[in-house]
Each structure stands twice: as structure tokens, then as C-alpha cells.
């Protein structure tokens, strides 16, 4: 039995609208602020991530530098400080993905999905905080390294290359974190899967040594990793003006050309993974 009728409904009162559709930039700012509030709403949450880079710079790097004074003419402590960036940024970005799972299970993610903003903004808002935290860690690491005697080039162009590389690798690793978080149901699964994703490339990317120190087939494998390119770029900008690391990848003689090529590799990888992450998030978040 199906009876379909429409009873008389009381006439609605008119009201002044209090809202407009928010702009993308306003939505992005709001979502980034939210993620920042969630990730760093106590001083402890801001300070603890800085502890690892400072300990690396102040304890491990100087100790290793006593054993190996220099590599490719570069002071090993400075060489290693840059190598540590390639550990910290991926680890920080990938572990940040746990927050995405928390958001889905016990946070406000569903309310955000019902908000009148493009859902891409949720990924970009999270990304902004991942990049900001990464940059903060890099600054802490560089500061602590300098305090212990490491030396870095001060040319602006060098810092631009290094910043581009950090930015690229942060975007790429955050994209991987979004994909991983979308694919994993539980935090426990994520915690198990995150370290290999964050750490595995670091072993081959030439963090503690030149990639040519590995067997030839591993050297070839390393050349395909965006992290290898990012690391060589950072060193080119900060400690290796002759571009030894870039030469190990490209075998060319012009460091600027090699740097541009490596930056392109990092940028294209980052954009591709971010685009994929956005698609995976959007598809997995809605039924």
C-alpha cells in the first residue's frame, strides 16, 4: 500500500541570508588553520617534532663527522645535516597521515565533506600544514647544525634551490600519506605501513654517502628516486656548489642545467602524486 499525498505546509517566513559561498582561498585558509590547530594546539606538539632534528644535528652528525672528515670535498657534518633533511621531511609528512585517519574516524571530516567548498581544499589544507612543519624542522636542523660547526652557503640562489627541493619532497610525501591514509582503514595498519614508505627511499638516495658508493645497479635505482634528486639539489644549494651529487645522477658538466633537471623531476613527481592523492581522497571519502 503506498499512499502519496502532500499536506498543506505552513508558509515560510523570509529571512536575510547570512552567508555567501566561500571563496576557494578562504576555504583553504580555514582548512589549513584547522589542521594546524589539530596538529599543534599545545606547545608540546610544536616542540616535540623539533627534538629529532636537533638531536640529529647535535649528537649524531658531529659524532659521525669525527669518523669521516669529508666526502667529495664537503665537510661531512654539513653533508650529513642535509642528508638528515631527507629523513626528517618524509618521516614527518608520512606520520602526519595518521591525523587524516583520526579525522575520518573520530573527527569532523564528514562535516567538512558536506561543506560548500571543493574537497580538494581539504587535501591542500592538510598539505599546507605538512609543508609548514617540514620547513620548521629544516630551519631547526640547520640552526642546530650551524651551532655545532656545520657550514652552509649563504647565497640566496642556493637557498632557493634547497627550498624548492624541500617543498617538492614535502608535497610528494604528503601526497603519499594521503593515498596511504585513504587506503588504510585503521591507524594500526597505517603505523605499520608508514615507516617503509617514509624510510625506504632514504636508504638509497645518498643521505649518508654519495650514490656512486653503492653497487652500480643500486646507483641506477637511486637515480629514479625523486628523493635522490631532492637531496642532490639541497646539497647543491647549501654545501656542494660544484654539484657532485647532481653529476652522480646526470653525468653532465653544467650544475645549473642538472639542478633544473632534478628540480623538474621533483616537481613533476610531487604534482603527479598530489593529483593522484586528491583523486584517491575524493573517491574514497564519498560513497
Amino acid at each position: 500500500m503506498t499512499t502519496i499525498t502532500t499536506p498543506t505546509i505552513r508558509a515560510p517566513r523570509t529571512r536575510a541570508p547570512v552567508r555567501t559561498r566561500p571563496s576557494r582561498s578562504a576555504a583553504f585558509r580555514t582548512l589549513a588553520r584547522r589542521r594546524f590547530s589539530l596538529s599543534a594546539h599545545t606547545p608540546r606538539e610544536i616542540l616535540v617534532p623539533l627534538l629529532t632534528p636537533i638531536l640529529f644535528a647535535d649528537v649524531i652528525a658531529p659524532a659521525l663527522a669525527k669518523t669521516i672528515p669529508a666526502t667529495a670535498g664537503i665537510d661531512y657534518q654539513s653533508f650529513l645535516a642535509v642528508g638528515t633533511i631527507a629523513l626528517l621531511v618524509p618521516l614527518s609528512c608520512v606520520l602526519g597521515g595518521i591525523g587524516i585517519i583520526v579525522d575520518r574516524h573520530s573527527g569532523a571530516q564528514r562535516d567538512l565533506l558536506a561543506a560548500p567548498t571543493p574537497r580538494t581544499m581539504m587535501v591542500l589544507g592538510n598539505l599546507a600544514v605538512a609543508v609548514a612543519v617540514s620547513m620548521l624542522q629544516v630551519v631547526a636542523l640547520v640552526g642546530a647544525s650551524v651551532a655545532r660547526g656545520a657550514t652552509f652557503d649563504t647565497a640566496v640562489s642556493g637557498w632557493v634551490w634547497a627550498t624548492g627541493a624541500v617543498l617538492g619532497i614535502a608535497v610528494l610525501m604528503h601526497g603519499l600519506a594521503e593515498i596511504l591514509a585513504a587506503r588504510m582503514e585503521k591507524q594500526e595498519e597505517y603505523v605499520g605501513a608508514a615507516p617503509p614508505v617514509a624510510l625506504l627511499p632514504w636508504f638509497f638516495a645518498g643521505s649518508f654517502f654519495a650514490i656512486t658508493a653503492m653497487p652500480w645497479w643500486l646507483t641506477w635505482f637511486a637515480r629514479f628516486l625523486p628523493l635522490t634528486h631532492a637531496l642532490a639539489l639541497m646539497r647543491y644549494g647549501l654545501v656542494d656548489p660544484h654539484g657532485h651529487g647532481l653529476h652522480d645522477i646526470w653525468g653532465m658538466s653544467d650544475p645549473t642545467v642538472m639542478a633544473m633537471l632534478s628540480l623538474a623531476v621533483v616537481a613533476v613527481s610531487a604534482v603527479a602524486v598530489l593529483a593522484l592523492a586528491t583523486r584517491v581522497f575524493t573517491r574514497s571519502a564519498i560513497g
Partner: protein
Amino acid sequence: MDPGRNGAASAIEVAELRKTYRGGVEAVKGISFDVARGEVFGLLGPNGAGKSTTIGMLTTTVTPTAGRAQVGGCDVVGDPIGARAASAVVFQDAVVDRSLTGRRNLQLHARLWGLAPDRIAARVDDVVSRFGLADLVDREVATYSGGQRRRLELARSLLSEPSVLFLDEPTVGLDPRIRHELLDVIAGLRTTVDMTIVLTTHYLDEAERLCDRVAIMHDGAIVALDRPRSLLTALGDEIVELTVDAPASLLLAFLRERSLTNDHAFAIGNTLTLPLRGVTTRDVFDALDVSDFRVVASSSRPPTLDDVYLDLTGGRLAA
């Protein structure tokens, strides 16, 4: 937006809406309905009936497989952001940032729904006082009780003064006192705020109390859609439940032979549910006196939406 049957424009229009999930589960099977502006519309049904999937499609968090739906004049597939701008949702589970304060949750929602920045503080204060959250709102939400959290979510949903408010099982899991308190709040919205409300529930008293019309869903389809009173009227003024010492279907056949029952009577196990129309309890018991059936238990009561649902589907609403 098309004008509704009463001259009022429809806030929601749904035509042949369908959702089949991956793996072939057909959650919603081509449903159609309109909800007029200012109406409180109930989607009623047990768990798995397709209510939440329907709400999901209307709030654009579930993609329809086929059909069409408009919310506030915006197609949920063609203009999902427009549909979301016109609406707000209170979800079945707690959907809040627990490590943030209530005020921060409200502010974030207000910004995302496009409230003018200079109006946010006043608007937040307004809903905070209306929902009695003043003492809580600067505390972390993690410290709230279930009822307090639900009040916060309801307050949040009203910040943007949405044209359409979706309430997905808003009182589920709450203790009876808080549940009734919230029902009062929702009922109060009808008189103080002009908005269309779509409410899903499997609590029949909520639907009877709050809704102008209800659509009863069963197995992904709408099996009845009307005012609660009209649906109940079909069952008469009184329902008699008889438990006998034999299969109740035999008693049903016995009473049918004597024209003492109608199509709305149904038998489950040894219990016969008998809506009375044009006959009295006395007529039924007089007939039983001359039969071989022994009445183990009997009761009489006004019909409920549960009876309507049982009549339509053969199953009970409340899980």
C-alpha cells in the same frame, strides 16, 4: 525551483534516485519524493532500509547511481557545492574535532559555510546561548557528554541558517532524558526558524511528534508516504493484539470468514494484530467464544507507525 503542490517551492526534489554500491548491493531502489519549503519530513525505517544512503546522496557524500535530486534548487550531481551551501547536516555519530573547543568547532564551520567574518562572533554567541552551551563552549569537546556534543552539533548546523537541515538519526544512542530534551529543541526549530528539515529515525514517537509527513522506507524503497495521522487512520482507531494457542494465521482466516477483519490485519507466529474498523472488541471476542481457539493474552491500544510498517512490510521498525 519548481513550485510545489501547495504553491510553495520545493526545497528538495527527488526523482527515481538510485544507489547501487560496488559489489552490487542495491541500497536505494529508485525513490521519488518532494519536500516543500518549511516542511519537516521524516524518513522512517529500520537499519539497512536506505535512509542514511538517501541522506548521503542529498548531502553529496554518496554519489547516486541513477536518478536526480535537487536540494535548494541545486542538482546534487551537477552543482554539489550549491546543494551543500543550501544545507547542513547533523550526523548519526559524533562528527566534531574533539581536541578543539566547542567555539573553535563552531567558528570553523561558520567560515566554511561562508558567513561574513564580521558576523561570525555574534552568530556563534547567538547559537551558543540558544542551545545553552555558554558554560561549555570554551572547553575541549572531548570533555563533553554525549548530549552536550549533540547539542553542539545541532547548534553548529544552524550557524549558517541553512535552507535545508538534515538530521540523520539525531537522538540515537542518547539516554531518554537527553533524547527528549533534544526533541524539544528540534521541535522548537519549527516555531522559531524557517527551514526545511529532513529527519531520519527508527524511533516512531520522534516521527509522529516532529514530522509533517513521513516516508516509510523498506529495503531501499519507499513503501508509504503521508502524514503520520493519515497513515495511522488507515488502521482505524484501535488495534487488538491476540495471542492464541495456535498459529495466528488460522485465527486470521477464521475471523475473515466472519467479516470481522480487514486487509490490514496480520499474523506473526501465534499473535494476531487486528486493526478494528466497523467492528468492536466485543464482536471479536463473541466470535472467539464459539471457536476452538484459546486466547493466551490480549491487549488493545491505539495504532502506531510500527503497526503501519508491520502492515506494509511484515517486519517491525524498531530494531
